[in-house]
């Protein structure tokens, strides 16, 4: 701890910020240089973050605990009207963990992006946005007060908008970007209200001060619950929890590495981070009602999203619903009080889900299609992608010793102790998870290639344009792309593994997918959890019933999936044929989009029309009435102005006479 000063923490977001500014202002035309600059900057951040983490780990290993593991720096940013707005940094195990996750994933994703975006016209712009995003995310996680967190929170929202709509010439991408921005704004409003309630009762923005104020009773009872539910609403928006989850699947319109970085590993985890950061406040609400809300929203989201993941055919959509579902898991973990388990799952999930997304990107890069029905048999062609994604899938499904198992199991154990209903929900969701991820794996990598044969592949240009890395704008570009594809021989025989800049990050991410869970496993004495809980002793008694049943559930899910999609013993339409409406309903995302569309169209637009009528006829009527009155008065009076100079002269003369007469009569002598 003594070697790392808290001031150094400020350097971490500074590097990517500098990269963003330099790329935006100077190196935009030099795309290679932009990429190297951006990667170098995030690598520098990664080193500083690692140093920060190292200092904490050293302190932790020498049995420091509690406040000894927390360093804070607060300065007054500015004060206005007696209100001092703080700016500050915090370094504690939670922040250190988030810093390392954000910088590692951002670094690997940027390396990967060099390959994935290689001939995109917006190459430099892409890296500028990614750098800005990294800066914002780092600001968010190292804030020690709500104000700064909120700034970071909105900045990552902006970057998410920019990157989802990166291919803004595609109407779907532009619409998805708007949808993501507006939906998360709805949650952000809740967060803002929550922050303001907290501020007006505790007169403080800092997390530590607020916790202290709540302890002494400045904010308690129902109002505290309301405030924390409002704060949670922000997390619901950002972490795509039900009912604000609708934006995340659409966000897949953005480039796949962006999905991996923002919509799987980091930004969507910000909601979970927020709840973890303010966990004490949630826990302080009477009867832990606020936590109960978190637990149930998370649990419902976990199973709700997982069920949609079962039927999606777009590989990225499967990953998107999987992300929503896993975020629900984390929320549920936090909600049932398994604080360290929830954070642990965030940590593990960041790596294996980023890997799943980057792997999907590698597949899409190879076949220029996202529909799994047009894939199959790619395991032999994309060996590295296949093996690394298999690691991630096993981690996601929860097979020991892969990372996901340890954290998911602990969340389930926490739920089991707290609430049987939540445990059942979690267990069913775990089964769904194992099923859908292996469904995706089998459909993509095993069996026969179902894509278009070599000569027809150009005909399916629709698929090409869907997540096109070429993003061709002009017919010439299209033609060149086609010629290039033809030369490399597209179709089944033309499918080849991605370049090393893309596969190396996959391999590097596969390592934590396998091993990161062990940090929090009983073999290592739950070291991770103990670290996150600031050195507190973590109970090590294991719930073997839960552990065995979660392994059984995961294996059952994988087996059933293999029976349907690998051995094809059970027909895939076993459920969808007798109940076509159910399948259609789930495939249509439970008609949530339609519902929101209806709400917007009828309720919001209806209210808007009423307001328009009021504005046009009542407000405008008053305004125009006043104007007309003045106009009419002027119209009557303007006849006086004849334009005849003698008339004016006469008026002056008459005026002079009248004044003189008055003066004379009144006897004044001027």
């Amino acid at each position: 701890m003594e070697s790392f000063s808290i001031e150094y923490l400020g350097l971490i977001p500074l590097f990517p910020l500098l990269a963003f500014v330099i790329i935006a202002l100077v190196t935009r035309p030099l795309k290679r240089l932009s990429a190297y600059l951006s990667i170098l900057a995030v690598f520098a951040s990664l080193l500083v973050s690692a140093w920060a983490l190292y200092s904490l780990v050293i302190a932790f290993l020498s049995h420091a605990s509690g406040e000894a593991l927390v360093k804070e720096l607060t300065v007054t940013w500015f004060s206005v009207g007696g209100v001092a707005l703080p700016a500050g940094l915090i370094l504690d195990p939670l922040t250190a963990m988030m810093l390392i996750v954000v910088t590692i994933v951002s670094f690997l994703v940027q390396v990967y992006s060099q390959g994935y975006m290689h001939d995109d016209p917006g190459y430099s712009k892409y890296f500028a946005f990614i750098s800005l995003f990294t800066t914002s995310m780092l600001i968010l996680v190292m804030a020690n007060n709500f104000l700064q967190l909120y700034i970071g929170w909105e900045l990552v929202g902006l970057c998410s908008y920019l990157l989802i709509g990166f291919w803004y010439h595609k109407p779907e991408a532009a619409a998805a970007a708007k949808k993501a921005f507006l939906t998360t704004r709805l949650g952000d409003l809740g967060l803002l209200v929550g922050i303001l309630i907290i501020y007006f009762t505790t007169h403080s923005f800092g997390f530590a001060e607020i916790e202290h104020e709540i302890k002494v009773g400045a904010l308690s009872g129902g109002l505290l619950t309301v405030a924390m539910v409002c704060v949670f609403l922000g997390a619901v928006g950002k972490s795509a929890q039900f009912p604000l989850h609708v934006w995340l699947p659409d966000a897949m319109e953005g480039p796949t590495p962006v999905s991996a970085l923002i919509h799987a590993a980091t930004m969507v985890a910000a909601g979970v981070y927020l709840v973890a950061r303010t966990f004490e406040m949630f826990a302080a609400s009477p009867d832990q009602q606020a936590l109960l809300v978190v637990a149930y929203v998370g649990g419902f989201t976990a199973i709700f999203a997982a069920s949609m993941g079962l039927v999606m055919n777009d590989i990225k959509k499967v990953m998107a619903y999987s992300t929503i579902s896993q975020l629900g898991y984390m929320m549920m973990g936090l909600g049932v009080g398994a604080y360290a388990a929830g954070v642990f799952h965030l940590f593990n999930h960041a790596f294996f889900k980023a890997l799943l997304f980057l792997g999907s990107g590698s597949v899409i890069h190879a076949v220029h299609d996202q529909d799994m029905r047009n894939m199959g048999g790619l395991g032999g062609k994309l060996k590295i992608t296949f093996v690394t994604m298999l690691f991630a899938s096993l981690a996601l499904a929860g097979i020991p010793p892969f990372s996901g198992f340890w954290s998911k199991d602990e969340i389930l154990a926490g739920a089991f102790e707290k609430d049987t209903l939540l445990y059942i929900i979690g267990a069913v969701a775990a089964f769904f998870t194992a099923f859908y991820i292996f469904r995706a794996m089998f459909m993509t990598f095993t069996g026969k290639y179902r894509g278009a044969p070599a000569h027809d592949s150009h005909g399916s240009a629709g698929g090409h344009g869907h997540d096109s890395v070429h993003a061709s704008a002009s017919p010439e570009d299209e033609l060149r792309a086609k010629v290039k594809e033809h030369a490399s021989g597209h179709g089944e025989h033309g499918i080849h593994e991605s370049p090393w800049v893309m596969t190396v990050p996959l391999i590097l991410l596969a390592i934590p997918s396998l091993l990161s869970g062990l940090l929090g496993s009983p073999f290592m004495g739950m070291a991770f959890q103990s670290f996150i809980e600031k050195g507190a002793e973590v109970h090590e008694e294991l719930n073997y019933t839960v552990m065995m049943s979660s392994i059984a559930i995961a294996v059952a899910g994988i087996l059933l999936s293999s029976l349907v999609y690998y051995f094809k013993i059970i027909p895939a339409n076993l459920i969808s044929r007798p109940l076509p409406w159910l399948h259609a309903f789930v495939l249509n995302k439970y008609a949530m989009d339609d519902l929101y569309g209806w709400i917007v169209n009828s309720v919001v637009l209806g209210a808007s029309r009423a307001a328009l009528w009021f504005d046009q006829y009542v407000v405008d009527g008053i305004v125009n009435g006043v104007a007309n009155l003045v106009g009419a008065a002027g119209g009557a009076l303007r006849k006086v102005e004849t334009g005849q100079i003698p008339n004016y002269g006469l008026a002056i003369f008459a005026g002079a006479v009248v004044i003189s007469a008055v003066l004379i009569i009144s006897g004044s002598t001027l």
Partner: protein
Amino acid sequence: MLSLNHFLLLGAVLFSIGLYGALSRRNAVAILMCIELMFNAVNITLVAFARFLAPAATASQSLAPVSTVGQVFTIFVITVAAAEAAVGLAIVLAIYRTRRTISVEDVDLMKW
């Protein structure tokens, strides 16, 4: 013996004639001439006051003017009037060139 009142009466009559002409005539040149008339009425009044009411004149009963303020003022009025006439006639000429008339009734662009 002419007294101050005679001069003042002359000034008032001249001024009234000029005012009547300025208000009633339609011809812009005639109006300018009437304005000159009013200037001269004022000049007569000024000179008369200077002659009869200047402090030195009343004190010594001598007709030699001591204070020349009124006379100097009159010279100024004449000078300004000359300039005014030059500008006024130039405007009238310009109006005539563009509108082919110098009747002030026809020059009423300022009206509503």
